[in-house]
């Protein structure tokens, strides 16, 4: 009897896995194909035979409990086999991937799932590094790389397949006890996750730009290193029945016939995504931090739909409040009131629920920081661990993304400048290893992100000296400690004696401040010499809502963002003075502030002329304080920010508009622009606020 060609059988299997359903008959036919392939491989032997045998064993194990996952398993096995059977058919040229809508959809899911998977892997790796290996953790890691390999195979992402495959092989070795996940091995896996993440980013960019995905420059060498590492492992002792031996794949696998065969009948392919999610949720949670969250079922919804729903609910609330405040006859009846009360409650619950749909835990961003701390610490020759707290704190997803940059700079700064070298730490009577603590919490109506280090603290005198050198400070005596610390946020400011590739160029901290202020947040620094520093970011709960003070000027109303308000006061005649009877100044507790009349600035008629019968709202931006003369302060309220949109000109004095409780539009004043009207002669911007002081 002639033995059929394994490659041909493999192709059959690959196309079969895409066409069958996860029912009895489908699985039977798959198992049959797999067994046939195993038989064909038997005379050939080698790694492929073991992979096949393992696939069959897993197949039988999984079949009873999770039939859908079997498909996933088989397709991943097919990709492995493909790599093992044709190791020499190297063809580095990336295959032209035609991206139709379906493919893009698949790629999007793949990016999402793999990104999540890599985050999980990172978390486990860090955990392994600190707490050691358990088989559960290794299995979880294995699954991550396995899944990535499987779907990447569908999508003909040969490089990702190769890397995931080699890493998976390494995990396999670890699982079988031929290698421990420490030292070089752990380093390689870390590198692999970093590389995978980079390649996923490339893929995302390539898809967005609609261009061909190029090959990643360092991927090949990493795969080679992984394979060399695998080859260098002691050979298998006892031939285990289920366990695959060392698998050595070609550094650059081909994207050849089989992978193409897998990808071709894509239309009939089962959506990989649900299987993935099932796989994830079925997996025992590998690490302690997120025990319950993983079991939840999720639905993916287009962000735009969520936004439009949130917007509509906002409208609903306004209509509801209009109804409640209407003075029509009948609105006073008891039933009407009760019903309205109920409507109000439901609408607010609805709004809360809608708002929560936009939020995500800060978890992901925090995990990346743990990785970063490790890397930066190693480069700087310091032992630093990052302890995170409150990673379940949820915030607007747009903000989590925008928070990452500032966090990166803060962590780098803390590791490079904050934490001392082990020798210095010992000399100072501290543990040789530094500790960074990253905390997220809700405090009042804000989210507070805190990065605390137990390093040497900020050098107040050196910062001040540097500030004076750079002309940022004019009268050093008048500066409070907080104001001195804030100097480090000036662009290009660095006290680092030497520029390293980590930090010292003076870019960085200004990014922190800029990004945080762009999110309408603030940065505070606390520092004690020898005991470390704390950077505290205070951020609003969401970018969509702003806390504003509603003020009136004449018959018009404007919103002043509460975050910019220092105080509101009614001036007395003694506090007022003028320059040339035209430009007005206001003296508040010894500090002289320029005063702007909103009425003349905005051309409002009918505003109060006499400041002593009106109110001054003192606002601050970019270190400048300005008094705004308004008629009245009506109320503090939260409003949903809306873009003013096109057709109203530059409108630079407004940062947006909001719909007020009566359904009319109120403009939100752009305090940065208003304060920007004032400039000081002969002084740099940072020093300006102090000039007016006595």
């Amino acid at each position, binding site marked *: 009897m002639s033995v059929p060609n394994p490659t041909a059988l493999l192709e059959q299997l690959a196309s079969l896995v895409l066409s069958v359903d996860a029912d009895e008959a489908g699985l039977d036919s798959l198992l049959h194909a797999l067994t046939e392939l195993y038989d064909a491989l038997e005379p050939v032997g080698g790694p492929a035979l073991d992979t096949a045998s393992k696939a069959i064993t897993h197949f039988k194990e999984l079949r009873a409990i999770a039939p859908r996952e079997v498909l996933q398993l088989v397709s991943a096995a097919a990709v492995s086999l493909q790599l093992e059977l044709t190791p020499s058919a190297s063809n580095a040229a990336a295959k032209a991937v035609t991206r139709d809508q379906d493919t893009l959809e698949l790629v999007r899911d793949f990016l999402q799932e793999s990104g999540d998977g890599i985050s999980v892997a990172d978390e486990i790796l860090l955990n392994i590094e600190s707490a050691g290996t358990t088989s559960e953790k290794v299995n979880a890691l294995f699954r991550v790389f396995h899944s990535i390999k499987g779907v990447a195979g569908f999508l003909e992402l040969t490089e990702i397949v190769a890397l995931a495959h080699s890493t998976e092989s390494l995990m396999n070795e670890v699982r079988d006890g031929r290698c421990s996940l420490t030292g070089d091995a752990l380093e390689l896996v870390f590198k692999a996750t970093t590389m995978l993440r980079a390649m996923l980013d490339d893929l995302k960019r390539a898809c967005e730009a609609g261009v061909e995905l190029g090959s990643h420059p360092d991927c090949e060498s990493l795969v080679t290193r992984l394979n060399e590492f695998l080859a260098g492992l002691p050979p298998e002792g006892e031939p285990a029945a289920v366990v695959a031996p060392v698998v050595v794949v070609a550094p650059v696998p081909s994207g050849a016939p089989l992978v193409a065969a897998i990808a071709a009948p894509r239309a009939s392919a089962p959506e990989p995504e649900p299987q993935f999610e099932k796989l994830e949720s079925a997996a025992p949670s590998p690490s302690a931090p997120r025990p319950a969250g993983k079991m939840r079922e999720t639905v993916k919804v287009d962000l735009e739909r969520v936004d439009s729903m949130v*917007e*509509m609910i*906002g*409208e609903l609330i306004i209509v509801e409040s209009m109804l409640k405040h209407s003075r029509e006859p009948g609105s006073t009846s008891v039933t009407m009131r009760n019903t309205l009360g109920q409507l109000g409650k439901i609408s607010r619950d609805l709004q809360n629920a809608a708002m929560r749909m936009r939020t995500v835990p800060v978890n992901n961003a925090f995990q990346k920081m743990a990785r970063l701390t490790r890397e930066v610490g190693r480069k700087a020759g310091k032992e630093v661990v990052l302890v995170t707290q409150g990673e379940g704190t949820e915030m607007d997803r747009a903000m989590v993304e925008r928070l990452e940059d500032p966090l990166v700079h803060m962590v780098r700064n803390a590791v490079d400048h904050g934490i001392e070298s082990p020798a210095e730490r010992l000399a100072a009577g501290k543990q040789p290893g530094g500790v960074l603590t990253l905390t997220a919490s809700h405090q009042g109506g804000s989210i507070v992100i805190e990065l605390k280090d137990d390093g040497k603290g900020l050098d107040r005198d050196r910062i001040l000296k540097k500030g004076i050198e750079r002309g940022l400070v004019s009268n050093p005596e008048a500066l409070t400690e907080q104001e001195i610390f804030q100097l480090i946020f000036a662009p290009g400011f660095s006290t680092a004696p030497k520029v390293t590739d980590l930090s010292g160029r003076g870019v960085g901290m200004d990014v922190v401040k800029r990004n945080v202020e762009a999110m309408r947040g603030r940065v505070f620094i606390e520092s004690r010499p020898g005991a470390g520093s704390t950077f505290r970011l205070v951020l609003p709960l969401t970018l969509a809502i702003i806390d504003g003070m509603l003020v009136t000027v004449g018959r*018009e109303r404007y919103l002043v963002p509460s975050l910019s308000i220092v105080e509101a006061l009614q001036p007395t005649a003694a506090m007022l003075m003028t320059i040339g009877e035209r430009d007005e100044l206001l003296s508040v507790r010894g500090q002289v502030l320029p005063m702007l009349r909103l009425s003349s*600035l*905005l*051309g*409002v008629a009918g505003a109060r002329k006499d400041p002593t019968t009106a109110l001054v709202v003192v606002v601050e931006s970019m270190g400048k304080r300005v008094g705004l003369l308004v008629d009245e302060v009506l109320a503090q309220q939260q409003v949903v920010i*809306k*873009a*003013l*949109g*096109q*057709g*109203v*000109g*530059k*409108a*630079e*004095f*407004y940062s947006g*508009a909001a*719909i007020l409780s009566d*359904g*009319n*539009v*109120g*403009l939100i004043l752009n305090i940065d622009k208003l304060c920007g009207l004032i400039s000081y002669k002969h002084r740099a911007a940072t020093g300006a606020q102090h000039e007016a002081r006595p």
Partner: protein
Amino acid sequence: MNAITHSTTETTRGTALAGKYMTFRVGGEEYGVEILKVRELIGLLEITRVPHAPHGVRGVVNLRGKIIPVVDLRTHLGISNDNAAARPVIIVAQLQTASGPVTTGVVVDQVLEVRNIAAAHIEPPPSFGREDEATRFILGIAKTDKRVVLLIDLDLVLAETNLSLVA
């Protein structure tokens, strides 16, 4: 659209302009806007003035949660405020700009009717030789039932509104 119509012959101008128009009144004059541009009509909404907005922009209104600018045709056409309606109507129109469609409100005194205007009834607008003449917004003059309807180019109105803020 206007660029093409200005350069074509009068017959094709009429043909290109023929169609359904919504007519409205501003001051004592009757104007018509292509019905396909009109999204809806709203009244009784308080317009929030936007200080420093370009000349001709009355302000913004809340259109079911969306904030849209409102253009005052009187300014553009040079019509005095003397006999303005106490309760004006806002025509919400989808206008084309260089950067894509923009939903804009246009304040008018009164909305009259939707009517079919045939090519034969459309005549070209005369030019008075001034740069600021309101005729530049007029695509054609339609004569029906002893009345005259001025077919207005709202896209150009909006374009000029946006232009004036750059200057």
